[in-house]
């Protein structure tokens, strides 16, 4: 339901941003406790954008898929609840903030923009993304960051506050993934995450880009095909400094916490991992 301009925002506990009031609108994704379907929800979002609202707050989101699919421009969407699969698919510019966990494939084929997930993420986050930033405060699932790629000034960055499962950064063709291995408890205390930093087949098929893991675990036997562990160089350090700073500010993590463990960086052995696998002869 579209709610009129200048409605008062119900202050959520985890509010981590400011909202300008004039251009703000609230949409209830489950009026009277009945979730509306994604098509209806997206139609309302498009309606709001057509009326020049740039701050869109979605309340009671309950698994609706494709929120923000293919949206462009200077728009900020706040999601209170749990969005469904393919959040921000093909998105090209907007900022999406989620006060809650996410289902799978957030940021699928995203081109540009920012996604801040104040909770856990699902599987296959950032699939084939070509640009933009995705921050996940908690843990994520399998095949996260698969086939991320970069092009000219477009460079996707995916930062995970917690840990990841198997196939992290599979077939990666560009961009960077940072996994911090922290756990932020309900009351805001930050501890080292007891789970392993990542699962097996780490970076399998990677041929461009890099994965930064904040860990002292031995991850050698988790490496996938074509991936190699490097010690963090000064250049690498510089490469992630600003990203980590921004991430820590976003989720109120004291930057000193980060220094308590070293980073390992996973990069491709070769830019052409399967070069010698094929041959052409006139037979």
């Amino acid at each position, binding site marked *: 339901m579209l709610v009129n301009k200048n409605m008062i925002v119900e202050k959520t506990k985890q509010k981590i941003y400011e909202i300008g009031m004039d251009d703000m609108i609230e949409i209830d994704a489950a009026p009277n406790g009945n979730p509306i379907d*994604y*098509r209806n929800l*997206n139609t309302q979002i*498009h309606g709001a954008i057509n009326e020049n609202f740039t701050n869109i707050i979605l309340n009671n989101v309950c698994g609706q*898929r*494709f929120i923000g*699919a*293919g949206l*462009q421009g200077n728009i900020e969407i706040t999601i209170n609840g749990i969005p469904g*699969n*393919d959040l921000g*698919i*093909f998105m*090209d510019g907007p900022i999406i903030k989620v006060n809650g966990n996410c289902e*799978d*494939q957030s940021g*699928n*084929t995203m*081109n540009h923009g920012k996604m801040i997930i104040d909770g856990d993420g699902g599987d*296959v986050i950032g*699939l*084939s993304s*070509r640009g933009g930033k995705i921050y996940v405060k908690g843990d994520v699932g399998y*095949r996260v960051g*698969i*086939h991320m*790629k*970069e*092009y*000219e000034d*477009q460079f996707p960055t995916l930062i995970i506050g917690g840990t990841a499962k198997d196939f992290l950064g*599979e*077939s990666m*063709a*560009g961009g960077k993934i940072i996994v911090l291995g922290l756990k932020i408890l309900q009351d805001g205390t930050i501890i080292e995450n007891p789970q392993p930093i990542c699962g097996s087949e780490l970076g399998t*098929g990677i*041929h*461009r880009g890099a994965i930064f893991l904040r860990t002292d675990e031995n991850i050698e036997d988790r490496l996938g095909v074509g991936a190699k562990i490097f010690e963090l160089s000064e250049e690498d350090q510089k490469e992630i400094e600003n990203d980590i700073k921004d991430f820590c500010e976003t989720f109120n993590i004291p930057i000193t916490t980060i220094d308590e463990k070293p980073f390992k960086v996973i990069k491709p052995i070769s*830019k*052409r*991992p*399967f*070069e*010698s*696998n*094929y*041959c*052409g*002869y*006139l*037979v």
Partner: protein
Amino acid sequence: MAIVHEILNYFKVEINREQCKKCKRCVNHCSYGVLSFNGEKIVSDDQKCVACQRCAVMCPGNAIRIVQNESFLPPHGNYTRKIRNIIWAQSGDGGVLLAATGNDRPIRSIFDDLLLDACQVTNPSIDPLREKIETKIFFGRRPEKLTFVSDQDDLEGVSLKTKLMPNFEMDMPIMVGHMSLGSISYNACHAIYKAAKELNIVAGTGEGGLHPDFFEYAPNIITEVASGRFGVDLNYLHNAAALEIKIGQGAKPGHGGHLPGEKVSSLISQTRMIPKGSDALSPYPHHDIYSIEDLAQLIAALKEATRYKVPVGVKIAAVHNSAPIAVGIVRGGADFLTLDGFRGGTGAAPRIIRNHAGIPIELAIAAVDERLRQEGLRDQVTLIAGGSIRYSADLIKAIALGADIGMCAMPVLIAMGCRVCQQCFRGLCSWGIATQQKYLVKRLDVDIAKNRIKNLFHSWNEELKEVLGAMGIDSVESLRSNRDRLRYIGPNPHIAEILGVKHAGE
């Protein structure tokens, strides 16, 4: 480690020394390094010759002939020359052998075993030159039924209640199959898109993105969203008549595309949106699609992202279980379904898959058409079929078996000058088609190539009308799935049964 074992060459360049003017034109035109001038005469390194015929065509003295190398291997009916060559190549290199174009095994064509019906006495035929025969078709999802609302008091006040889904019109039931910029040249793409626009048909972009120069052809272009998502951004999604999720390709079902870094020029880099010189590796599956439900999800996502303005469909290679998969795809929301048979072409694919995986398109069309009809879905969806539609006869038979549109690519390349040398994956196409090298690409004149494609399809369409007229049918839509107008004359009656076609004489 590569251990080279010379493979007996297939071809020989014969130069008529009396006719040769030593102009060296052939040397310049050979992109495979076969010909050279040794100061005295033109000499050839026949081992490298691929019989692309460029030198022979360009020679002003008509002095060149490419002939088969008559040097003989001991004959063996089972270990053919080809099989021995494959073994020598692999034992020398140790790699997976690549191949281009479609399956080259001499497998019997089912299309060739089908005969068309014609009118005699009891039903009049139609003269297509004097009477209108419609070859126009509509592309996109059709509603199951139409409902109208009427205003009781006003007879004029009847209006359509059913919400129509996006559809567009094509003048011929023909589509140019998906070939990416990368697998073919800029000029070849340009000629194809221009021809599609002027003929009011559609052409596919393949999975390599759409160069911004070609956005003007968007109303006649179907773009692909494949597992690599190369070049897929909002501009790409918004510049298409229809969007196709590419699951598979007839020449390489189950295999991801692989464009080697050396072919990723700045033009290709711009189109695919990847850095220059980096490999473009398409993951084998879409990693957001592991089930029909997931596929339905991507279909819905694409429709959401394009605000329900264009049809969204799915392409699969014709494989053993195509029929139930097709049902899932249509139920999953696809507005069109593209089937690509095992003879479908490619710019590069592992030979083992190109030659041995998939099923013939004829059987897949019949099976899918039949199953969709059983499920009450057939009329809702546009069915495109390709995978060796070589000429109008194949097109007509494909439609009679159950396709709405015949898709082809190889005939388009041949029309532009391709000699089917099957070396596309080397990027040295001397005809400027399957190459990115500027000096070769400029050999292909866009307007001449465009006109040749237009002529080809114009003649196919006229032949289609002739056949429709002879059958007494006035619209191609009435030929679709009209299998009673086909008869089988091949050796295996079980094929006729699967096709739902009677044997000749029945």
